[in-house]
Every structure is written in C-alpha cells, then in structure tokens.
C-alpha cells in the first residue's frame, strides 16, 4: 500500500517540525485560551495601564483618584467601548508574552512602559493605538475632573461662581 508522505518526512523530521512549531503554538495559545473564554484580569490590567499614563508624583496617580472605577463603569455602559478595551488589553498581554515570555501583570514597570510606548507608536490603523488613544483621553477626562489633580496647576476649579475679576492683570503664578 502507498502512503502520501512528504518527501523528507520521517519520524525525526516530524519531531523537529513539532519543536519548531512550539513557539508559534505558545504565541497562539493565549489567543486560543482567551477566545475559549479564559479571561484577562481586565480590572488589574486597567489599573496598571492607567497608572502608567498618570503616575503618582506630587498629585495622586490615576487609580489614586478612582479613574479605574470610572472607566470600568463606562465599560459596562457602552458595549463598543468594552470591546475596544478588551482588544487593547489582549494586545498588551499578547505582546508581553511575545517579547518577554510572561504575562503583562508580571512585567517590571519599565517593560510595561515600553509596551505602552509601542502601542502609542503603532499608528492610526492599529487597534492597539486606538485603545491607547481612547484610554489616554478618558484617563485625562476623569483625572482632571477631580479637584485633587489640580495641585500644581494654576487652576482653582470651575469658572463659576467666582469668575476671574483679575483677568486683565498678569496672572499670579502660584499652585492651585
């Protein structure tokens, strides 16, 4: 009986092929796992990403002002946003495994920052850029709506009810 084996196929070659396929399988595995319903730790990932965008210095970090909670709330209200954030976080996870062989949450901060830089640079058509852009925008909307973020800005809060009776004078540059 004839077998239609590839010309050089042999048991040894088969094992070699299997080993070569392993890294590809490892890259794909998380996708398959997540596709099958294994979930990213979305809240934890968001907290880390947000605190990279808005870290703590003289003023609190993003999570220090509850920005993560606001964004998680937005996820629940807007389906398209949830999809965008999930895809974005999935990208970070996949990239982390691809470049560093570990999960994003286990990376060093400098490595996490590096991935953020990659997302930012990936350009308009890339879904990770859209996620980066949306997250950055929302981070700043929620962060700078909070009075505790204004320390250090020459900004004392909403324009009413006091207005700016000194508008025609040189501004006094002191912290808000």
């Amino acid at each position, binding site marked *: 009986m004839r077998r239609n084996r590839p010309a050089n196929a042999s048991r040894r070659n088969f094992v070699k092929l299997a080993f070569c396929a392993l890294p590809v399988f490892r890259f794909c595995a998380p996708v398959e796992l997540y596709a099958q319903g294994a979930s990213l730790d979305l809240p934890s990932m968001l907290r880390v990403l947000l605190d990279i965008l808005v870290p703590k210095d003289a*003023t609190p970090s993003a999570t220090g002002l509850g920005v993560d909670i606001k964004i998680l709330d937005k996820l629940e209200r807007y389906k398209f946003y949830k999809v965008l954030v999930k895809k974005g976080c999935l990208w970070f996870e996949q990239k982390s495994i691809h470049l560093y062989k570990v999960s994003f949450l286990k990376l060093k901060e400098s490595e996490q920052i590096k991935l*953020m830089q990659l997302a930012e640079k990936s350009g308009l058509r890339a879904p990770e850029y859209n996620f980066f*852009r949306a997250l*950055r925008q929302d981070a700043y909307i929620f962060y700078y709506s909070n009075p505790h973020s204004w320390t250090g800005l020459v900004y004392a809060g909403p324009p009413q009810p006091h207005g700016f*009776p000194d508008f025609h004078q040189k501004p006094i540059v002191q912290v808000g």
Partner: protein
Amino acid sequence: MTYDAIVVGSGAGGAASAYQLSRLGLKVLLLESGPAYNPTVDYQLHTNKWEMAMFPDKTVRQPWYNFGKMQILEKQHETLRSWNHIHGLHNQTMRRLPVRYSHVQGLGGSTLHFTGEAHRLNPASMKLKTDYDVGADWPVSYEDLEQYYVQAENIVGVAGASNDKVRFRSKPYPLPPHPLSFASQKIATACNKLGLSWVQNSLAALSQPYDGRPKCNYCNNCNRGCPRRDKGSADVTFLAKVVPSRCTIKTGCHVLYLKPGKNDQIDGVHYIDEMGKSVFVQATWYIIACGAIATPRLLLNSKNKYAPDGLANESGQVGRNFLESISWTSCAIANEPLGTQRGLPADGICWDFNGPESIPGVVGGCRLSLATSEASLTGPINYANRVVSGWGIQHKQQMRHAFGRVVAIGGIAEQLPNPRSFVDLDKVQVDEFGMPKATIYSHLTEMDIDKLKFMANKTREILQAMDVEAIFEEYGTYDRFNSAHVFGTCRMGESAQDSVVDRFCCSHRWRNLSIVDASVFPGTGGGEAPSLTIEALALYACETIYRRIVRKDVQDL
C-alpha cells in the same frame, strides 16, 4: 384667543419681533420648538464636569438636517487642513467633512450659546453688487438700521468703545468697553509690531450692572451658557421684556408647516405641541424666525396647491444663496504665563481687514479675534488631551508649565453666494413627524479658500510676533463644515424675481408673511457676528408689520 401675530422661533429675530410687536400693542403667540433654559440650574459652569458638559442640549428631538456630499480636498491646499500635534489631522479623509451646524433649539435660540459679540455691519459690505458686481445688495441701508441698532444695543446692554470710524453711531454704547484681558494686551503689543490694530470688541456682556442684571465676572465661558444672566442672550433681554399680557410664549411646540391660502394669505400654522397634540392656530400675521436652515425647510415643507414650489418660493430663491462662516483658528503656547482661562471670549478684535477691499485679490473682508475660549482651551482636560503631548510624569510636569499659556487667534471671513451652496429638502429622510429633513449643500469657492489662506497667514504672523513657544493646533472650515453663523437662504431684495422678502422682511407675494432671521441677509458681512443686526432688523421690520396689521391691509381671517 385670537392673535395678531404668530412668531415661529425665539432666537435673535423671533425674540426681538415678539418684543417689538407686544410693545406696540399687538397680541403675539411665540412658538418655540425647544425648551426653556433656566440659567441658574441648567448651565454647568460651577461643577467639576463643566469642561466636558459644553452647552447642555435639552432637546429630545431627532436630528432634522443632514449634509449633501462635500467637495474633494485638494493637495495644493494641504496647509489649510485642520490638525493637532498629538492627534494628527482632524479629518483623515480626502473629502470635506460635515461636522455640524452649531445651533440651539431652545427659548432664546442660538443666543443661548453665542460668544456674545454685538456687531454692526460695515456699511461698505451692504452694497457688494453695486460696488463690486458680486453677491447682492441689501435693500436697506446702514442709515435705515442705525437707530434700531441703538435700540437693540440698549435692550441687550452692549459694552463697547464708541470710536468706530467705519460704523457711524448716533449714540454711544450704553456701557463702557471691557478692559482687555492680559492675553489680549499681549496680542495688542504683537499687533502693533506688525502695524495692525487690536481693540476692545463690542460685547453683549455687561461691564457694569444694568437693567437688573449683574456685571460680568469674566469666567470666559459664554459659549457654555451664562448662569449669571450678564450675557445678553435673547431670553434674558428681549423675551424678558415682552408685555406679558400680550405675548404668549409656548415651548416644545414644533411647527410642521404653514398653510398658504387664497388671496395670497397664510391661513394658519400647524404645530405639534409639547404633549404631542396636533394644533392648528391662526393669526393676522405670521413671522418666521427659525434660522437660515430651518426657515427654508419650513417654507419648502409648506407647499400646497396655492404654493406648489413651497411657500414664498415664487422666485425659486428659498434655500438658495446659502452662506456660512468661513473661519480659521491657530492655537499656540505662549512663552510666559498669561492666565488665558480668564476674561471674555473674543474680548479683543482686529477690524483692519473687515472692509470688502481689504484682502488682496478677493472681495469680502474678515476679522481676527481672540479665540482661546471658543477653541475650548480654558480648562485642564482639554489641555491634557490637546495641548500637552505624551503621558506619565513628564505629562504632569508639562501640564503645570503649560496651563494658562494657550492663546488662540481666530478669523471669520465673508462668503459670497455660489450656486453650489444651498439648502433643500431631503428626498428620502424625514423627521419623527414625517416631514422631510433639510439637506445642507455647502461648497467653498477658490475665493473662499484664498480668504482662509489670508486668515491662516495673519493669525500665524500675530502669534509669531508674540514669540510663542509653538503652534500646536490649527483648524478651519476648509476641511470641515462647522458653522454657527449661516445666512442668505431667503434673501431680501428689491425685486420679487431674485429675492424672497422685501426691505421690510415681508414676502413679496404673501400679504401676511414675514421672515426675520439671518436667512434674509443678502451677505454675511466681513466676519461680523450677526445677532445684533438680526435684532435691529427685527425692530425695524416689525414697525412696518405693525402698521400693516393695524391698517388691516390684510383681509380679516
């Protein structure tokens, strides 16, 4: 109740008409499609979410207009594309993008969110056909309107410097001008270096307490609604002064059509009230004041056997001659703290190029003014998202450096009518009441584009003369339709062949119909804000309308 007049729309024209007619002793019904706004409650300027709240839109209606296909953007005009240093091009496509027609449906109309500029037209821009053989002449003169400008300024409470050499004044402004903000003082210095002037703008914001309203406290956010009532929007001025026993105001009332009848008279108005009930109401006279897009839409939707081409459209001009604001804004970071979140929007202005001959190679002028507030760059969220690039600690540090340093200078120019800009009824789409929506067809000519280039160059020159750190954002109407001021679609004129209304805003044919809004403007002017002219025109026209009603020139209904 029987009404002498029904006014449809409560913006600058409708409010001033209702005021004038009720003051003259007539019984008026004012129908407004949108809701009333409570300045103390509805405007968000005292809350932490003020910056993202913008002007609060309380309407629940579906959009009633859309856009026709926009023109292709040409490579040779790449420098006029709108961009931001962080986000790139605002419009990533190769076709002009319809963003929106910026208006308010509410009691007071678009004056509720207007910047508060109070301008008289340059008399030289009212005779473009005679003097330059372009556009159309106004059938009224500046002199005809002058005393009504005075009246409107007194009712609104306009603060200005009464030294305008171009626009003759019989009386000074009722209020002294506002001081220039610190930022505008710096701009003035830069302009002087360039041989340009930068002067105090005339504003419908009180520089002193006036007429029971407080003076402005310079919060710099007129476009988000004024909770103090110091901005002279129509609701706190004209509508607050209507004679209550003679003027009935109904909000939430959406007029579907007027009913043209026999003997060239309108028989009545059909509207849906705020409870959803269909109502037919009659008056001796009908005044339409819905703005240059809604007014032609209403007229075209009012066709019947007596007006087969739409009401008052015997000339074919209803919806034609659509004019928009051609505008440009350049935004930069100054090299020193200016506190630009403070003051009044557009407090300083350059009128040097406002006359029709002022811009080389084109007919029609422009003005340049402070635009930081109109660019929505007075709060930390917009700084974080548009001004300061990057993220992380560096972003926070840059925020502390940059806040209060943004200065934006904008320009608005005259547009001349062209046959590719018009408003028509949509052939397919209808609103929630089954009435065809309006479709806006907007086209910029080469002359319009030349004016945009002129304004872009001038704003950049001024910012350079200020020695700014960098220009970080620019946007204009070359690649995006985003207009608040629209005009021309029911233009006034001497001849019934090529205009819709006469010099008194009365229909050439229909004996009890007037139109009193910017749709009657034959021209835009050289960038002047239109509300004061609309109000003056309404006061002027309503004196004639009153005489015609009282003399019973129209058959009793």
